[in-house]
């Protein structure tokens, strides 16, 4: 460790991202010592799920400039797909407790959710976003936002119309004893869902950073005309982005089916939380979204612990409004400009 590195770290610590990360880690540690490690476990599981949903949201905003209000509904589609795939599998498992499906059945359901989300994304691009993009580009952000509001209402009520409003949930994916980590018993499902989200976020990050397609996506998000000049097929990238973003939300819904049973408005809570994350962390910043996801998860868990259940919309949104007043571009920065900025 040279002296130079030290001073770089110190200056980073003084910036908004550094400060907020350090403060959240400190708060997380303090709360864990005070209330017990289960708080940390809850935070990590919720944060992993939120990271998936928020990354998809960030991707949509960054690449396509669509402020997605319907993202929670892809979460719902994922959980619904996983439910209908996993129910027959779990019946089969009951009869044949030794089959390989005991271990791998849940993965089939979760991968099914991923595919279902991607297909839903492609369909919505073909039917909804594509036509709008071809017809008009002025006032695009607001129009597409209202369009996603319509999509959200449509999907919620289609779910209610076709599948009914009751809770479609499962007891758990993986049976067996909970795993003990540092004296806390954590159910296998939670560990697996965190692992799944961690692996997917990591893969996604690598994909965006190192592959040609990922670079193309980033190029489109930076400058769409420039990307077109270099010969990137915009339509293809757009389609890919939407299906990726929706698949990310759906996989979160699928892997959390044991916590959030599928019902028409199940997506609203992840949607609110993901928007908190996106606003908090700024736009088009995947790593920022991941960090922000854990911060929002921490906020939520701590609110539930110290203020009480049901306050988990009030306190985080109040805090985020406070942050927005002082830092309108989010903690990790983005180019949002307000009236007062020159």
């Amino acid at each position: 460790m040279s002296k130079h590195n030290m001073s770089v770290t110190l200056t980073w610590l003084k910036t908004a991202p550094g400060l907020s990360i350090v403060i959240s880690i400190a708060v997380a540690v303090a709360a864990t010592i005070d209330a017990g490690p289960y708080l940390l476990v809850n935070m990590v599981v919720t944060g992993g799920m939120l990271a998936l949903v928020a990354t998809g949201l960030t991707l949509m905003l960054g690449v396509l400039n669509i402020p997605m209000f319907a993202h929670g509904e892809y979460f719902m589609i994922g959980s619904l797909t996983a439910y209908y795939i996993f129910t027959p599998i779990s019946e089969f498992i009951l009869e044949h407790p030794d089959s390989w499906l005991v271990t791998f059945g849940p993965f089939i359901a979760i991968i099914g959710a991923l595919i279902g989300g991607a297909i839903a994304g492609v369909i919505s691009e073909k039917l909804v976003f594509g036509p709008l993009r071809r017809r008009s580009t002025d006032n695009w952000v607001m129009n597409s936002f209202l369009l996603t509001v319509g999509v959200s209402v449509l999907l919620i009520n289609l779910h209610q119309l076709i599948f009914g409003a009751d809770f479609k949930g499962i007891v758990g994916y993986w049976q067996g004893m909970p795993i003990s980590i540092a004296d806390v018993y954590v159910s296998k499902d939670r560990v697996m869902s965190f692992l799944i989200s961690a692996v997917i976020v990591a893969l996604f990050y690598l994909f965006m950073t190192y592959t040609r397609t990922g670079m193309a996506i980033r190029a489109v998000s930076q400058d769409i005309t420039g990307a077109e000049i270099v010969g990137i097929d915009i339509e293809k990238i757009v389609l890919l982005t939407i299906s990726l973003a929706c698949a990310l939300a759906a996989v979160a819904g699928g892997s959390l089916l044991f916590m959030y049973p599928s019902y028409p408005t199940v997506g609203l809570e992840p949607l609110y939380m993901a928007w908190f994350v996106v606003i908090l962390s700024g736009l088009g910043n995947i790593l920022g979204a991941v960090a922000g996801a854990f911060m929002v998860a921490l906020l939520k868990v701590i609110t539930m612990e110290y203020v009480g259940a049901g306050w988990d919309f009030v306190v985080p949104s109040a805090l985020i409004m406070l942050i927005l007043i002082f830092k309108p571009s989010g903690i990790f920065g983005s180019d949002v400009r307000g009236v007062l900025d020159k």
Partner: protein
Amino acid sequence: MDTTTNDLNMNLFDRVLDKLCLTPIGLAGLILLLILPFIPPFNQEYMLRWLIYCGFIAAMSVGFDFTAGFINIVNFGYMAVAGTGGYTSALLVLNAGLSPWIAMLAGGVSSAILGLVIGMISLRLRGIFAACLSWFFGLAVMGLAIKMVWLTRGPLGLRVPRLFETESNFPFYFLIVILVYLTYLICKWVVRSKMGLAFQAIGQNMDAARTSGIDPVFYRVFNFTMSCAIAGVLGGFYAHFYGILTPDMMHTSKTVEVLAVAYIGGRGSLWGGAVIAFPFIFLMEIVRSTLSHLPGLNLVIYALVLILVMIYYPGGFSYFYDTHIRQPKNRALRYFLNGRDA
């Protein structure tokens, strides 16, 4: 944008009509609304109840359009603001023994204060971020209404005395028609003045507006405060009409309803939403009550209409009216549709 013309060859009737911001067809529509409850199928109490709901949404959509259509900021917590007005009014009547009429105005004041706060906070943000901020604000207010059980009785709801002591819905219907018209008139007066130009300039291009010497801070905050005050009074009406007030009223899905009507009616027209709300909401209520074994079907239709309008006809009904109906060859008809100054 029509400005007041002091044309000498206008007769008294035209001048009065112009002051009242009505065209002859508008006047005819208003008269039709006033005699509607005496025409046979509509004179039943349940039909009147629906019509009153139509009127409520119509008035709300005018107030909503005042912000969304002019300064181009979607107030996504609009129903929460209205709910604040409703709760203030209800609590004043219940706890302080005020007359509902005065309490309604007090509700308007409380919502105006809320609007002032939202307007001030969202000053630093633009477009979608301001929308998100008002949305978070709405979520927080709704969370407060749910959790402050000692004051609001939470999800159980408040029992509120009605405005008129009768069981009949007739007086309420006339009151809401008057409120719809008053809302329209006040908004139109403001929009017709220099202020309206300033609003539009800010909505279209803030930098250009600032260069021309318009202070966006004042106009944005004023616009927000006024539209929220309208929402507050209407929220008071809602509370004192239904006689029961639950936090459900503040839900985002209710805002979506207002938003859909405002946009289908046509943004920036003020009258579009009010005109569309009556047939549209009424049809939806019929669908909801006759096809009650298919819950959610009305909202599916709702969402489909919103999506189709957003993609294929973003100008909404008022744009359609202006381009296709407004300029007929026949002079008498043209007078009927436009009034004298066309």
